[in-house]
């Protein structure tokens, strides 16, 4: 009964999203496309950061690799069409993630975060200085494509596939193993889980999603420069969206991306100057009161009819995350 209602609601939402380009202006559609692309990145980050519990702070590297690979293949002498070029970008990202993941996924906690941060910075420098291929800081220009609907529907398609992938992942042995790694790596090893393999797979998955988002954004923006495509903002946005929504849940990243985009757009339109400050405060409040994300609010209400916000959560959160 409840399940049927949920499915009906979901289908209605889907129908609305499909019909959306006919309902809103092309400028507004851009905002929705941006939300979907953020959702896609967040879904990717969710595999490594949410399910596996590794704070990857450099996923923008794969966003950038996706963007550059897609762009260079499209404008090079082969003139590869968009989708094969995008697929090549995703594959290359996965490959890089596997090669980099093998050493850096041995690090834990802050060290891993810093290593990933370093990787993103290093790749940004490569893009900046490898003039013969990337045109350095001038950047590259992709073929022009103006139909906003194309980007919207492509992103929507990817996000839906992403949802299906995440749902399958969370029920699979792979997903279960990744969660075990997040909860206690030694215990996971003793339970027979090949932790290195699982972590690398989760990391590569997150790279694929970031690369898809990167390639799509590149095609939409036409112009790709190291400064625009390797900036840490993307990494932060995907992390914040995932955490607001609920890390390690199927719907969380998408929900979080929607809330983040909504807030960001709204706050921006109201407080042009103070925009980052106010957005920052809102994010802090979210993280303090809802450490496990919006999905827990829905889950808690469904399970026990408890109040969704409690002071004790704040205290428990502080207690759980103090440095020991």
């Amino acid at each position, binding site marked *: 009964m409840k399940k049927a209602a949920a499915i009906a609601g979901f289908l209605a939402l889907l129908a609305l999203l499909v019909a959306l380009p006919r309902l809103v202006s092309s400028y507004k559609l851009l905002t929705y496309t941006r939300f979907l692309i953020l959702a896609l990145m967040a879904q990717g980050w969710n595999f490594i950061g949410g399910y596996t519990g590794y704070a990857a702070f450099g996923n923008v590297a794969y966003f950038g690799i996706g963007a550059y690979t897609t762009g260079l293949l499209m404008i090079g002498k082969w003139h590869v069409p968009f989708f094969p070029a995008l697929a090549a970008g995703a594959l290359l990202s996965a490959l890089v993630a596997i090669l980099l993941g093998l050493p850096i996924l041995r690090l834990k906690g802050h060290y891993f975060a810093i290593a990933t941060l370093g990787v993103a910075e290093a790749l940004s420098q490569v893009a900046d200085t490898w003039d013969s291929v990337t045109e350095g800081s001038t950047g590259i220009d992709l073929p022009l494509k103006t139909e906003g609907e194309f980007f919207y529907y492509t992103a929507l398609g990817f996000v839906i596939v992403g949802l299906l992938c995440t749902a399958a992942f969370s*029920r*699979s*042995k792979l997903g*279960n*193993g990744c*969660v*075990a790694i*997040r*909860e*206690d790596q*030694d*215990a*996971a*090893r*003793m*339970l*027979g*889980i*090949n*932790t290195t393999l699982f972590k690398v797979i989760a990391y590569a998955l997150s790279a694929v999603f970031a690369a898809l988002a990167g390639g799509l954004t590149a095609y939409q923006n036409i112009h790709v420069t190291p400064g625009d495509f390797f900036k840490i903002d993307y990494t932060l946005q995907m992390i914040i969206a995932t955490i607001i929504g609920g890390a*390690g849940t199927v719907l969380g990243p998408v929900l979080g991306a929607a809330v983040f985009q909504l807030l960001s757009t709204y706050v921006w339109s109201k407080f042009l100057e103070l925009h980052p400050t106010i957005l920052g405060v809102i994010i802090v409040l979210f993280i303090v009161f809802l450490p496990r994300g919006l999905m827990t609010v829905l889950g808690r209400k469904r399970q026990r009819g408890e109040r969704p916000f409690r002071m*004790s959560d704040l205290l428990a959160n502080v207690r759980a995350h103090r440095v*020991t």
Partner: protein
Amino acid sequence: MSALPSPVPRIPGDSILEARGITKKFGGLAAVDGIDLTIRRGEILGVIGPNGAGKTTFVNCMTGLEKPTAGTIVFNGQDITKTPSYRIGRLGMARTFQVVKPLRQLTVRENVATGAMFGARGSERSAAQARHEADEVLERVGLADMRGRTATELTILDLKRLELAKALAMDPQLLFLDEVMAGLNQSEIEKAMELILRVNRSGVTLFVIEHVMKAIMGISDRLTVLHYGRKIAEGNPKDIVESPAVIEAYLGERFARRAEAAGEENALIEPGTFLKAPPAPAGDTLLEVKNLVSGYGEVQILRDVSLEVKDKEIVALIGANGAGKTTLLWTISQLLKPMGGSVHFAGRDITAARSDEVVGAGVVHVPQGRRLFAGLTVRENLMQGVYLRRDTERIEQDLERIFSLLPLLKERAGQLAGRLSGGEQQMCAIGRGLMSRPRLLLIDELSLGLAPLVVDSLLDLITEINREGTTVLLVEQDVQVALEHAHRGYVLETGRIVQTGPAEELLDDPRIRQAYLGL
């Protein structure tokens, strides 16, 4: 235990695991130093030894969590010395962790299902089948009612069960149990023994590390004693506990005297044999707890507790797991604010006072699990106890006094607390408490996970500091030991004080003997 299936027939000389010359060095220190050990198929091999003897490190080496510096391990005829731990798990070896390692945010069922997914028969099962298998295992260990709870909601007793369930779900042939009974009371220990025997009879070979002597004597086919990383004795359990080397290294003289006094094993739990506490002083009331109500969130744990502790007294607080002993100590030291009732200390109302005011008044809490600062040295940990003291000139003097009471700490003063063995950590925690110059010391689970000999020396320490004028309220799972060293005792049951009296009377009380001493 009568309904147990008969033991698995054993083929003499058939070994499931052969460890030869196992050595594990950390820095220059050998935690395990050339141990040869054979585990026979189908047996229960008990392993005892003082804290820091290398028991857990040995298990870590066997299960691949740490790679031995030297030596070879052969499991079922296959050399696994260099095999990664996850593959060892799939070969049919499983373990529990002394400090439980649940997958915290997952439900009990998901925890166990993970074992079933990746264990020896994991490749035969789909994720859904593994979850189904988990239900059966939970039934076996008596956790079926808890399957939907997340691991964080469980009590320590259930976490230990979960630890076992996770390991069993891996369908192991050889299972290492690392102190699964620490913190259980007598009747819980009986149940745990029965469960362990059942697991063994179903065909699992067991390697059991345990400090609870009664349990280890009751279930082991053979007994091995480790000391300073070496094997010092092995053989029939009864012979082993009478061996002078084992008594000296591990059991302590008191245990031996007790055993000798009655000439048989039962004497270990004969009450009143070796009463240690000095004569009871007739001081004024120091701590007065009246009608205390306390708990967490909406869950009430203490429902109307009243007790008093007189100046210079040692009072034991006993009761089953979950009775509310720890909650009571937390509420007295105001780490947990009471919902009702009052706490008076030295005539002053400290109900709902800030915890630093409580410490300032002279009430110092040595928490369960020690809670040391693992990244600080022993000396730095001890110095954490002096924050509220103004008599700076006497601090050095007190530090010297603690080092003279606990010479082991002096040797280790520069070491990180996280590297200490369990007994040393407990000493350090008590030392840190003493550095605050308490008038009243609250000690939670003094003997948890400690070797008998260490427990003896800690109890001597408590008698000593009490003689010097410190009042002690002691929570202790080992009722016998607690009451032998206390002047008076209180019995807590489901949040209420159900009995009180002089320690000797409680020791001889048939109800207490039945409930906590398993007689």
